[in-house]
């Protein structure tokens, strides 16, 4: 009997259409994320077709004119009120470029851009950020935080959870809402509507309050980097204010001032490739000057050096590399064929991101060799098999795994 980590489905199935596997985790509740956490994953039905594919077919039939009308109604309620009438979280990637620019220049809003900076900025990522602000003449607030805390939290996330991106995900989600409340901006717009989200509203006041309630009630039992907050503060001499930036907004503040968080991708037809063209043409966005390791593209999530490593860890834990994520999205958007997807996966999936690896390990003070030993502890036995001292996937989309 093969052991199965993370509560993943025992049998590995690939979606016939999108090539994504049923090991793909859906969004996790990061605050309760420990080694023992079980993941909710992508559902693939008995015909071998995933929910994500089904939603993409529904998306094709949507009448976008009606959705845009809904957007206009929403925007009309808030336009011109206060110093800023909406808030767009982002760091100058193609999606936030598109969202902020289109809200301002097509729909006449006055957005404030709010940035949770990458842990380690790439030089071209920083340039894209600056170009974004300059080209759109946007006001921007970038979070100032105790970098040492985030360095340690990131290090712990890798050592305990093999998940370098935890604090980034938390900060990106929670910081924007707090700024919105502080500056009395009632509307927050995220960009793309993930395949799993069928709603316009990412968070409304009640769901924000729920998050806040749980967090502040159970502050004692929250985990960051797989370590209890209490222990983090004690062991590393951190104060509450160091951790506060990534915590969700305090419930009391929300009672006084309700904030609505929407997905712009619910109202506008979101084609990732087209947001790339838009960002280049209007916001001075430039793709990475070389191919992103682990995939074939050059313009998705390129501002954080740790991003590449993050996708490598998903490959180790779930057998899903960055290329698999990219091609399943392109297939769902009818941009590439299943066949092309297979070829690309074979060529790039799981490629080790060595360009920034040493720099990241040095910054986080993790021994490189230790990292390589550590990664093997996170390979779920039902996904990986060791043959002659080397690790191989048991099953792949191309059906060339060692057990296929």
């Amino acid at each position, binding site marked *: 009997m093969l052991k199965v980590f993370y509560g993943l489905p025992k049998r590995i199935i690939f979606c016939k259409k999108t090539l994504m596997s049923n090991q793909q985790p859906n969004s996790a509740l990061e605050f309760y994320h420990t080694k023992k956490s079980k993941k909710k994953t992508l559902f693939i039905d008995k015909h071998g077709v995933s929910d994500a594919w089904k939603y993409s077919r529904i998306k094709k039939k949507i009448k976008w004119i009606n959705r845009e009308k809904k957007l206009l109604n929403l925007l009309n309620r808030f336009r011109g009120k206060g110093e800023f009438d909406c808030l767009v979280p982002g760091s100058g990637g193609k999606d936030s470029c598109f969202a902020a620019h289109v809200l301002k220049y097509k729909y006449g809003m006055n957005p404030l851009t709010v940035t949770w900076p990458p842990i380690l900025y790439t030089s071209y990522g920083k340039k894209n950020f600056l170009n974004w602000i300059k080209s759109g003449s946007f006001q921007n607030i970038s979070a100032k935080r105790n970098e040492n805390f985030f360095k340690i939290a990131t290090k712990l996330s890798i050592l305990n959870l093999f998940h370098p991106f935890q604090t980034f995900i938390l900060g990106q989600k929670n910081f924007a809402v707090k700024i919105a409340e502080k500056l009395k901006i009632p509307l927050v717009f995220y960009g793309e509507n993930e395949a799993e989200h069928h709603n316009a509203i990412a968070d409304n006041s009640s769901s924000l309050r729920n998050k806040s309630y749980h967090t502040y009630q159970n502050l004692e039992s929250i985990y960051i980097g797989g370590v209890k907050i209490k222990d983090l503060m004690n062991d590393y001499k951190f104060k509450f204010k160091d951790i506060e930036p990534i915590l969700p907004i305090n419930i009391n503040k929300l009672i006084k001032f309700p904030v609505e968080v929407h997905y712009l991708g619910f109202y506008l037809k979101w084609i990732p490739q*087209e947001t*790339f063209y838009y960002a280049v*043409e209007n916001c001075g966005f*430039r*793709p990475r*000057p070389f191919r992103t390791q682990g995939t*074939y593209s*050059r313009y998705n999530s390129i501002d954080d050096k740790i991003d590449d490593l993050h996708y490598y860890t998903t490959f180790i834990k779930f057998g899903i590399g960055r290329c698999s994520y990219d091609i399943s999205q392109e297939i769902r958007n009818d*941009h590439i064929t299943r066949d092309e997807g297979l*070829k690309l996966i074979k060529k790039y999936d799981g490629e080790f991101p060595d360009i920034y690896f040493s720099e990241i390990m040095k910054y986080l003070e993790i021994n490189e060799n230790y990292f390589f030993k550590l990664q093997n502890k996170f390979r779920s036995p039902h996904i990986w098999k060791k043959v002659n001292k080397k690790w191989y996937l048991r099953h792949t989309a191309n059906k060339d795994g060692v057990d296929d």
Partner: protein
Amino acid sequence: MNKNFIRIIPFLDIKNGLLIKGINLDGFRIMGEPSLFSDFYNKSGADEICYIDAVASLFGTLNLTNFIKKCSKKIFVPLNIGGGINSVDKINKMLGSGADKIVINTAAVEDPFFIKEASRIFGSSTITVQIQTIKINNNYYITKSSGRDIEKISPKDFAKKMQDYGAGEIIITSINHEGLKKGFDLKIIDEISSKLQIPCIAHGGAGCFEDVYNVINKTNITGVGIASLFHYEAMHYFKKINPRIGNINYLKSVKRKKKINTIKELKYFLKRKKINIRL
């Protein structure tokens, strides 16, 4: 400025049998049916036509042979083909299908000796090397595989090497400017074209007729490669296609126009500015 006759060369990127147009060499926006564009450009006065298989290096395929066979039956100006060509056998296949010049990029970067061998067997004038240049923090480097892999080699040095190894012509593609329609990278084009003794083609950035004039006037190139400037105009002229797979989002939004600006208008513009051009 080179006082001999300047060539205007439309560049067509082809993927899965469709004409596409990227930006900074990424993205696969579909423009339409390539043979329609090709015939149209031929009738409007294209001096040569260049077809690049945009994903040949990525997938290791050679898909343009049938397409070129059809083109060579009705187009009687030089046809240049590139995309994933990395062996003598592939060059033979392409020439046998009707290609006049072979455009090589990735293979030349990975193995410069291939250019030596190819030019020896097929003649220098059949072998064109495309140099994809990228500018990072004021330094220029070259790339291969449609801008996917960067090599820390100076484009000027590489161009000279290719000339020495027998390349008959160089295409200087500026990745940073490509697809943006904001003008050419005059600096690198001048740097390379003024140092070589073989013909050079400038490519990447043409956004208006004035851009084309500037690159001819301020550098020593003998040919100008143009894609976005022509394709985004010409796509208004044809009936829209509706392929099942591919990024057709932009194509859907395009409205049909009967009168469009194309090669003929560009050439008259250049002639009025005293450029030697074939009319």
